[in-house]
């Protein structure tokens, strides 16, 4: 063992984010004091980000199987069968902490990381999405973070050459010190050409590919596993720097050598770089790995073993190649101008051995580092559910139309055009439905199939009732896929929470997981990949529980997808699903009444399924001319969105007398959709709905250029659009 490294002190252990009992576990495991490099390796493998030690026991309860699931959680990304010999590979991952410290690079490398996860499995990326949560608009840092994160996502995705087609943006004071950047990537591979991380065969060359290793990002994963304090700004050097150009070359080179049959196993170097990728390849393949760091391409001089093992330099890959194909693979990498170096080999020892300058810098049992990392059953408490709010007891401080105008201009509901116009969403020529709808739709290769993609979660519901909130996040995702006519297939979950060592936070986590699991089971909507981001806290203040759900649905014919825009005047507007006027935790209550209170709307999964199947059938047989799910802001906001997207207005019937008007128009009851149908078909649709026990109401007719509610002041669609489009650009220009 190399003795040039300092001895391990209690301070060093703390600095590496290891708890005393975890250090004891290390001592027992190796029977001696670890070297500094070894301590670094343990800290990288056993931190929350890489080991899922607080979450694993709960994640196991999620449904992950289905006849169409090829690969569930545990690999770089999930894989589902989409027919015709093709597979869809997708995953969502957070880059929260780096994005708060250095928004441009943090967000950019988040996109880079998730793209690598997808093409590592042999898929060509076809779309990206991102779910963003920022602090209150009035917070002095918010504008800077929005601007940097959006530019970073665009800067990486646009250059790499993948369309960014959807996502979500929200604002709330609870994200003031801890923004969330969840990036999702989706790719297409041939079903019989999926590549995995598990190495096989003893004495196989391990090859390092891509960019050179530098000192950037050392301890990034450890940072991502700690809460922020006042000194978070000082952590800037742990944020990596992205190079989308290299990644684009890496993509092309990787796909080329995969196609040529050179690859046995492949793992991208993401969090904890060389350490994590090498250990996973060995541990998953039941093999040992020896790395010779003298062979690692470096861009800085004098790097120590410790630094090389923990560097998070971007755009790097580790592969096990077929020995007879090594030369061919090297030629391909050289053609793309990328580094290629044999840096080690697989062994039969099940040890992870790191050599540097003739010294053994680390010699550790590989399984215990990887799949046998510590696991915690952390204590949790579930807080009492808030009282239900009776709509009769909620005063309407302003008129219905005034409230609509205000809601459309609310930060969470307004148009996010300012954001998605900075993302190239048309590259590759397959974007059928661009950002701004319920789900994006992209054509698969030359068609006729298409994929529908969306990201969803309602954190205020999750906070008020984690179980219902978890269910709702999945249900809304499912609805958004249904609303474009797709068959929902599977999800990826990105679970963002506070400090799991606090029982009430762990309670939120456990509750949300239970809700997600229940909804996924009821809707046959398995979880195939995901990521957990804990310790999202600053100075002891946690974010709202935010389990972002990224969903993928399939359209057999992308041309049949529905959009939310009204298509022509004179069509019947149908409301599908039960309206009770649920105002608890609604946008109306928050934005109009200034109250963040009450129980969130309950989610009836049987109703979700029945109503959803009905709507999808209407879209696919061409009866529905437009489709839209009803979520934040309720019925009237959803109608306004359909009007704004088309420029066509509507005449709406009066609210029923048994519900207060503002609760009818703005309540957030679940399992609801709006569709339009040509007038002569409306009656037949009512009859069809009745036959399958789905509640349907005729609520009005598309008409002219004005939105008219019975008994209210009419309002021009152009004015609604102005409200909807103005807030974000004005805010970002510093005018608000």
């Amino acid at each position, binding site marked *: 063992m190399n003795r040039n490294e300092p001895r391990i002190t209690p301070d060093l252990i703390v600095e590496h984010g290891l708890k005393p009992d975890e250090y004891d576990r290390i001592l027992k495991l190796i029977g001696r004091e670890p070297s500094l490099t070894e301590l670094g390796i343990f800290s990288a493998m056993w931190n929350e980000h890489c080991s899922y030690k607080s979450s694993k026991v709960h994640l196991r309860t999620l449904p992950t199987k289905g006849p169409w699931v090829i690969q569930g959680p545990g690999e770089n990304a999930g894989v589902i069968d989409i027919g015709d010999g093709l597979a869809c590979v997708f995953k969502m991952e957070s880059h929260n902490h780096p994005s708060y410290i250095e928004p441009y690079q943090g967000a950019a490398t988040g996109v880079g990381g998730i793209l690598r996860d997808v093409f590592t499995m042999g898929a060509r990326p076809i779309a990206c999405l991102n779910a963003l949560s920022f602090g209150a608009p009035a917070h002095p840092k918010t504008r800077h973070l929005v601007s940097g994160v959006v530019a970073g996502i665009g800067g990486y995705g*646009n250059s790499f*050459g993948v369309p960014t087609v959807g996502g979500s943006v929200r604002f709330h004071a609870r994200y003031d010190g801890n923004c969330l950047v969840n990036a999702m990537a989706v790719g297409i591979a041939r079903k019989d050409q999926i590549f995995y991380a598990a190495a096989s065969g003893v004495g196989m060359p391990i090859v390092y590919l891509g960019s050179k290793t530098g000192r950037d990002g050392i301890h990034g994963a450890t940072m991502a596993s700690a809460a922020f304090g006042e000194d978070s700004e000082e952590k800037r050097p742990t944020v990596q720097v992205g190079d989308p150009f290299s990644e684009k*070359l890496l993509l092309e080179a990787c796909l080329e050598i995969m196609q040529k049959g050179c690859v046995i196993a492949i793992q991208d170097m993401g969090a904890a770089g060389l350490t994590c990728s090498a250990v996973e390849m060995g541990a998953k393949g039941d093999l040992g790995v020896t790395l010779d760091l003298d062979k690692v391409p470096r861009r800085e001089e004098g790097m120590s073993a410790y630094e090389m093992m923990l560097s998070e330099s971007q755009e790097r890959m580790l592969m096990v190649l077929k020995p007879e194909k090594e030369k061919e693979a090297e030629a391909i990498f050289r053609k793309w101008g990328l580094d290629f170096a044999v840096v080690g080999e697989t062994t039969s020892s099940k040890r992870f051995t790191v050599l540097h300058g003739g010294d053994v810098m680390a010699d550790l049992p590989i399984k215990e580092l990887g799949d046998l990392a510590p696991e915690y059953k952390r204590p949790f408490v579930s807080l009492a559910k808030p009282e239900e709010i009776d709509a009769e007891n909620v005063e309407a401080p302003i008129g219905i139309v005034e409230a609509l105008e205000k809601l459309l201009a609310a930060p969470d509901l307004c148009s996010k055009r300012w954001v998605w116009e*900075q993302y190239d969403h048309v*590259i*590759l020529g397959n974007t059928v439905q661009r950002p701004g709808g319920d789900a994006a739709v992209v054509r698969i290769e030359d068609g006729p199939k298409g994929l529908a993609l969306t990201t969803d979660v309602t954190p205020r519901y999750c906070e008020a009732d984690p179980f219902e909130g978890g269910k709702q996040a999945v249900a809304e995702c499912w609805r958004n896929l249904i609303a474009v006519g797709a068959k929902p297939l599977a999800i990826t979950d990105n679970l963002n929470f506070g400090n799991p060592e606090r029982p009430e936070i762990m309670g939120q986590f456990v509750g949300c997981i239970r809700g997600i699991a229940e909804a996924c089971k009821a809707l046959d909507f398995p979880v195939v990949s995901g990521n957990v981001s804990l310790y999202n806290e600053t100075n002891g203040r946690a974010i709202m529980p935010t389990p972002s759900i990224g969903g993928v649905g399939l359209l057999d014919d*992308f041309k049949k997808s529905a959009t939310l825009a009204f298509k022509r005047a004179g069509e019947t507007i149908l409301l599908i699903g039960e309206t009770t006027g649920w105002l608890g935790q609604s946008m109306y209550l928050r934005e109009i009444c200034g109250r963040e209170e009450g129980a969130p709307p309950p989610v009836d999964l049987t109703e979700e399924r029945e109503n959803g199947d009905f709507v999808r059938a209407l879209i696919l047989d061409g009866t529905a001319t437009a489709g839209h799910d009803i979520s934040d802001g309720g019925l009237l906001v959803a109608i306004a969105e359909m009007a704004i997207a088309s420029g066509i207005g509507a005449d709406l019937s009066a609210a029923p007398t048994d519900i207060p008007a503002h609760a009818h128009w703005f309540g957030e009851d679940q399992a609801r959709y709006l569709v339009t149908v040509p007038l002569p078909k409306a009656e037949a649709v009512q009859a069809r709905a009745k036959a399958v026990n789905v509640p349907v109401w005729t609520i009005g007719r598309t008409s002219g250029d004005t939105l008219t509610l019975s008994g209210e002041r009419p309002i021009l669609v152009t004015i609604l659009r102005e409200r909807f489009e103005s807030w974000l650009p004005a805010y970002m220009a510093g005018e608000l």
Partner: protein
Amino acid sequence: MKAAVLVFPGINRDRDMARTLRLTSGREPAMVWHADTELPSGTDLVVIPGGFSYGDYLRCGAIAARAPIMDSVRAYVAKGGLVLAVCNGFQIACEAGLLPGVLMRNARLKFICRDVFLKVERSDSPFTRGYNAGQVIRVPTAHGEGNYAADTETLARLEGEGRVIFRYVAPDGARDEAYNVNGSTNAIAGILNERGNVLGMMPHPENHVEAAIGPTDGRGLFAGLVEALDQAA
């Protein structure tokens, strides 16, 4: 049509362009690697597609303009061969001296992906014969540096010689700075070289050619080229 699409490292609309050429001409284009020194024999259309050649870490297009393949492109242009240079391709063509002027950062300093409206100023070029003069077409832009600028004398020549072939306009064809997406001088979206055989433009006609995906206003450019080249052949 025998098209050759140049591929520099970091170019990323090469696949879009290849598909559009295939759809509109019925022939698969040749993909030509930047390190090659010869265009395929018989090439009658060179396309420099969009993307971020060499990451655009230096001035956009500056490195690609000096790639080995560019000498043969210059020789081909000198013989009157047609070149369509789109987005990063336009930047490369300017850097390579095939077209005058430069493309600066967008006036609002942000990357913008948005459908824009272009007025086709002339229909008597091989690139625009598929359109009517004065026609307004809708095509997408996706760039951060498309703000066209040139010195006064060059601008006067471009305008005087009718070499400004596409201009950003309002949907009804009127000049309106609100629709000049990147702040280009004279709302210039596309220009021809002196001889009229090199077109540089920032927007992406290749992304608007299929009715199933969206508008098809880009089709006229490719259909016109196919017609022109078939007649010449």
